[in-house]
């Protein structure tokens, strides 16, 4: 209890908290940085709204297998080129049949081979968002494609982050030759243009798959784009983290841990890792946005997800052929991609502001 009266006592932070307690009755409690960050994040309504949008997209795609076929009556890869559906009582071809009709004496040419556009609810749940050139249901493929895109984006971001963290810890902690070798590996991967390296690896791997040693992956497996994308982004996370570990390595608490007899592994994972955790989290959100866009780019070019499997990138490419007469196909897939990546970016910004209002973590492109 602080003694008041003489005014000669030393006034410390403890005295302040005791005084506050006497006056207000409430104790001042220490809050962990994570709790403070959580509170700042909860106050950022904007970031939370976009997190909500992102969760909505993910849940809708993940549950596609539960509800999609009940609505559209078609599976993700079911074709229906000769199909006829009933729209408001009229029979309509899913893929238009080319013919000429006379309307008021003027011949009108109907182009063949154009897939049907969005039917919204008019066809009893079929082709809500239209069809592609093979008569497949766009809405169904959009959901399953989203599942593939999100799965590849997240898994590759996760693998990439884990590898980068391990590399950064090893390089920063051991320094010397280890650091030199790991930094040169980063330099080498960095020297390739991301999309081109992705294409090179993706094409080479999808020829016959990967069959070396105990690993056997077939050419159209989703693990090929996942492996390719997680590999090309390693230096983009590894480099900034290595710098942070290198700086932390010189701090007193590491010296203290060494003096207590802590081994290398314990220092790396119990002392250094918690101190870079907030950066890792922020970099992870930034890299997820990049991996999802890269997956779309590779799949668009034909070096990512292999047909007939859908992904948002392959769907944009599918729509390219019918762009003039039916732009919807490309539109939906790109819109979903843009919304997903935007929501991740907005939430990532909010997360960065919450974790450290003065942080300067960013991904160099």
């Amino acid at each position: 209890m602080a003694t008041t009266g003489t005014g000669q006592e030393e006034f410390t932070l403890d005295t302040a908290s005791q005084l506050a307690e006497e006056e207000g009755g409430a104790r001042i409690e220490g809050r962990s940085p994570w709790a403070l960050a959580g509170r700042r994040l909860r106050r950022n309504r904007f970031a939370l709204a976009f997190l909500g949008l992102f969760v909505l997209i993910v849940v809708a795609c993940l549950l596609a297998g539960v509800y999609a076929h009940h609505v559209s009556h078609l599976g993700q890869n079911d074709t229906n080129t000769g199909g006829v559906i009933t729209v408001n009582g009229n029979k309509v071809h899913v893929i238009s049949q080319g013919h000429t009709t006379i309307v008021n004496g003027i011949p009108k040419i109907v182009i063949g081979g154009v897939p049907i556009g969005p039917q919204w609810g008019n066809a009893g749940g079929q082709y809500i968002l239209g069809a592609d050139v093979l008569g497949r249901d766009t809405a169904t493929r959009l959901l399953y494609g989203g599942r593939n895109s999100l799965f590849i984006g997240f898994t590759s971001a996760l693998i990439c982050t884990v590898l980068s963290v391990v590399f950064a810890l090893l390089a920063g902690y051991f320094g010397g030759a280890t650091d030199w070798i790991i930094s040169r590996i980063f330099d080498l991967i960095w020297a390739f243009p991301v999309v081109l390296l992705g294409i090179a690896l993706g094409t080479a791997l999808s020829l016959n798959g990967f069959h070396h040693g105990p690993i056997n992956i077939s050419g159209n497996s989703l693990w090929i784009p996942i492996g390719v994308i997680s590999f090309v982004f390693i230096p983009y996370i590894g480099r900034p983290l290595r710098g942070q570990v290198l700086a932390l390595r010189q701090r007193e608490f590491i010296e203290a841990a060494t003096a207590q007899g802590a081994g290398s592994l314990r220092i790396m994972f119990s002392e250094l890792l918690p101190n870079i955790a907030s950066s890792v989290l922020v970099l992870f959100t930034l890299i997820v946005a990049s991996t999802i866009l890269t997956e779309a780019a590779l799949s668009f070019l034909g070096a990512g997800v292999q047909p007939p499997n859908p992904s948002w990138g392959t769907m944009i490419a599918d729509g390219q052929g019918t762009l003039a007469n039916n732009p919807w196909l490309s539109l939906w897939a790109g819109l979903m991609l843009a919304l997903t990546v935007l929501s991740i970016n907005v939430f990532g910004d909010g997360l960065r502001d919450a974790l450290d209002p003065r942080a300067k973590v960013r991904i160099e492109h």
Partner: protein
Amino acid sequence: MVAFVIRRIFGMILVLVAVSFIVYLIFIVIPGGDPALRLAGRVATPANIASIRQKLGLDHNVIVQWFDMVKSLLNGSLISYYDGTNVVQQIKEGLPATFSLCIGAGIIWLGFGILVGTLSAITAGRATDRVITGLALIGISLPVAWLGLILLYLFTENGLGGTFGTLFPPGGYVPLSQDPVQWVYHLILPWLTLAVLFIGFYGRVLRSNILDTINEDFVRTAKAKGLTSRRILVKHVLRASLIPIVTLFGLDFAAVLGGGAIITEAVYSLHGVGYLAFQAISTQDLPTLMGVTLYGAAFIVFFSMLVDIAYAYLDPRIRLT
């Protein structure tokens, strides 16, 4: 300074040698099985396969094969598996389109990036800043292929644009020497498509750089001297904030030249180096992809070295490290 430059050039050569070895691993070792089997087709006789193996030098050991690959690239004798055309020659023919696309887009994204970032920083917290920040976030979230297709649909005769008459051509490349007006006309949409992502990104980086610099001591000194705020912004704040942007530009520009513009080239059928790679994917033509990848990496490594040297020239402290 001379020692620094020599060291960097030496480092660049080492990196290029390592890069070529990685490319060799990707294209010759990874594709499971024997490239000769793939080339010989389905009805190959053992003698047939053996002769292809010998022709391609596949019976040599790893180091010799790698050396042969580099040699064929350097002396321009690398031949496409698919149509037998000369890969190095095709890359050379693609260069004008790729350079036209990248230089134009680079000027647009650097100019607008600086404009947007500065505007956003001097109005920080106000409505203009919020709108720009929002647009920049949208810009960095758009898939390039999609943006290209949407622009094609909206502004060319193939889509909605057709109802307004032809606004822009749907793609293709007209050489600058042939018709400068058509050259610009054909490149406007591709330039915008390629630049949007970078405008958003540079705007964001510059905004935070300027906001950091404004709190520096030398800015306070300038204010204390009674300089006008315009002069402080242009002569003091911007000059300091733009250094990281220039570095970024050097590296991004190299990446775009080195194959980063492949999607834009594919969407607009610009027959540049990226388009070459795009076509090689569908025909699974590994030598072409190998040539383009090495060409791209060489550009990035070369530009990184230039940026390093320019940086060391501007800031002598860097030369020591």
